[in-house]
């Protein structure tokens, strides 16, 4: 695991970047708090999976990408979506199945995509997007766009054989793809060590893929590594594999409330109290005099207000009309 970047002194010339990293993380947290609330108050159809706790991963990586770079996301996909540049309004509309959602309400939380910002979509098949991200990298290479793609997936997805097939091809063909394994210690209700034999990092090394591990709660460490790997991938030095050690604060999905049978309240409390990516980064920003507590407080309030306004908008927005039901099955000729 790389040394914490936040142990080092801030570089004042990077202040805008730092604040943007903070803001993006705060936006994700605010989005999820509202999504959770929508579920709990019975206003959201279906279930959804909260990204809270993992913000530094999505933000640290996506801030190293351009808009044209592609990502593929997972069932726990709101964080990646926000980090890649999506708007709250279209996102909440999507979560509520409204016509103004990114996918006109057809995808919902588990399939939210944002083509314009290079997000090829969340995926409800665990591991199912490994081929897609790799294919996007192949396209970038063939088309000579200099694009890079990032495949986000959880520790649980290491169980899927597809990942190994595409890593092999990515390695053989030197594709500009970064496999970002978010190890949040659990796949649903099972601990990672009960699901994965051997060392996680060894899984990609076996294909000769350069592999890194990083503290996924340290947004600067993640971002520094990502900047480096993205740049190298653009130069044709990819693929890369990164294990990001992180934690999800909520249950597996919003309905997973009684979960002490698989993880303890103490463990959850410890991560929240001591390893929160937003709190810790905020403290560092203050200590390094990049921002005052008041400024951060204000930022938090702005973001919360923005989220609330988007929720209200989405709640009032119309559903897609009935005749859209058989639209988009095929591309119109």
């Amino acid at each position: 695991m790389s040394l914490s970047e936040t142990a080092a002194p801030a570089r004042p010339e990077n202040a805008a970047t730092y604040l943007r990293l903070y803001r993006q993380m705060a936006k994700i947290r605010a989005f999820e708090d509202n999504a959770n609330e929508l579920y709990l108050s019975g206003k959201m159809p279906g279930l959804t999976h909260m990204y809270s706790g993992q913000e530094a991963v999505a933000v640290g990586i996506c801030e190293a990408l351009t808009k044209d770079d592609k990502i593929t996301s997972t069932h726990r996909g709101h964080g990646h979506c926000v980090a890649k540049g999506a708007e709250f309004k279209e996102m909440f509309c999507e979560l509520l199945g409204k016509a103004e959602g990114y996918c006109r309400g057809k995808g919902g939380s588990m399939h939210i995509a944002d083509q314009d910002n290079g997000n090829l979509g969340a995926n409800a098949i665990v591991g199912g997007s490994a081929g897609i991200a790799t294919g996007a990298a192949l396209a970038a290479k063939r088309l000579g766009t200099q694009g890079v793609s990032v495949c986000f997936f959880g520790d649980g997805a290491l169980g899927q054989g597809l990942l190994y097939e595409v890593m092999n091809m990515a390695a053989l063909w030197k594709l500009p793809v970064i496999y970002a394994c978010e190890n949040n210690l659990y796949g649903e209700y099972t601990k990672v060590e009960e699901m994965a034999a051997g060392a996680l990092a060894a899984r990609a090394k076996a294909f000769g893929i350069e592999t890194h591990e990083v503290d996924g709660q340290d947004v600067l460490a993640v971002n520094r590594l990502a900047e480096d790997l993205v740049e190298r991938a653009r130069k044709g030095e990819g693929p890369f594999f990164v294990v990001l050690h992180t934690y999800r604060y909520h249950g597996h999905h919003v309905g997973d409330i009684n979960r002490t049978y698989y993880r303890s309240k103490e463990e959850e409390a410890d991560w929240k109290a001591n390893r929160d990516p937003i709190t810790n980064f905020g403290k560092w920003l203050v200590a390094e005099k990049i921002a005052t507590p008041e400024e951060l407080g204000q930022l938090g309030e702005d973001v919360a207000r923005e989220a609330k306004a988007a929720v209200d908008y989405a709640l009032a927005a119309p559903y897609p009309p009935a005749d859209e039901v058989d639209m988009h099955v095929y591309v119109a000729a």
Partner: protein
Amino acid sequence: MREITLSKAVNEAIAEEMRRDPTIILMGEDVAEAGTPFKVLSGLVEEFGPERILDTPISEPGFTGIAVGAAMTGMRPIVDLMFGDFLFLVMDQLCNQAAKTHYMSGGKLSVPMVLRTNMGATRRSAAQHSQSLHALVAHIPGLKVAMPSSAYEAKGLLKTAIRDNNPVVIFEDKLMYQDKAGVPEEEYLIPFGEAKVLREGRDITFVATSSMRQVAEKAAETLSAEGIEAEIIDPRTIVPLDEATILASVRKTGRAIVVDEGHQSFGVTAEIAARIAEKAFYYLDAPVGRMGAMDVPVPFSPALEDLTVPTPERLAERARATLRGEPVHAA
């Protein structure tokens, strides 16, 4: 008779069979302590231990393949596939391996395994967690396919499936897990290939699979109030299919609509309708109607999703049109 949920019926079926036969094991994701996301298997690991109730990694092709091998060598594995949509991941192991082993080996090897999975939309789970894919496996010789329509059927068919010496795929409708039905305390099995006449009627036959039974029953009630008496047949297993019971009904009523929650095109309604149309041809007073799910990926939006599945209202309307002799083409 006591009433229990479909979920409990499944749980009982597995527990009873596992007590009887020590070669039965169950494997899948989060089947042990968690008892599956639907909590269908709660309590089993406490009784049978983690050696027989195996939590697997997220490796559907892998653990299905392991089940095939274990089945070939003395075990009777039950595979829990969390969502029917994941069938696409295990098709090779199920259809190229499990389904063909007995035949390819000239009868020497066999694969007594059960793959339990689910089906059913309208849970707002979108396109990859809502499919009803039973038609796909029904097309593959060597597999049997059961579709319980209530807690009673769920228990009896699952017990039969577990004792069957062939690979059996059983689809539970995930929207029915909390639905209750009368289930005897005493042991019973439901033989495969025996349809059940759920309601007698003289005017039209509804052939309805799985939860479409409820759709058919509600439609039949509405129609009955209008003087139209529908007969309802639940095939219970679509492979083997009890053609005789279906044909006998249609020969009596002269009219039929087949209702199933899989996509309509190239699905189960096609097979059953085609057989009726061919084999009850001279008895038919109207074309055989078909109502499947719309040929669209399942949309997330509640405003759209509910339009994609057959409903009692639409079935009743279709039945009336059939009786009026109007063309009853799919939309």
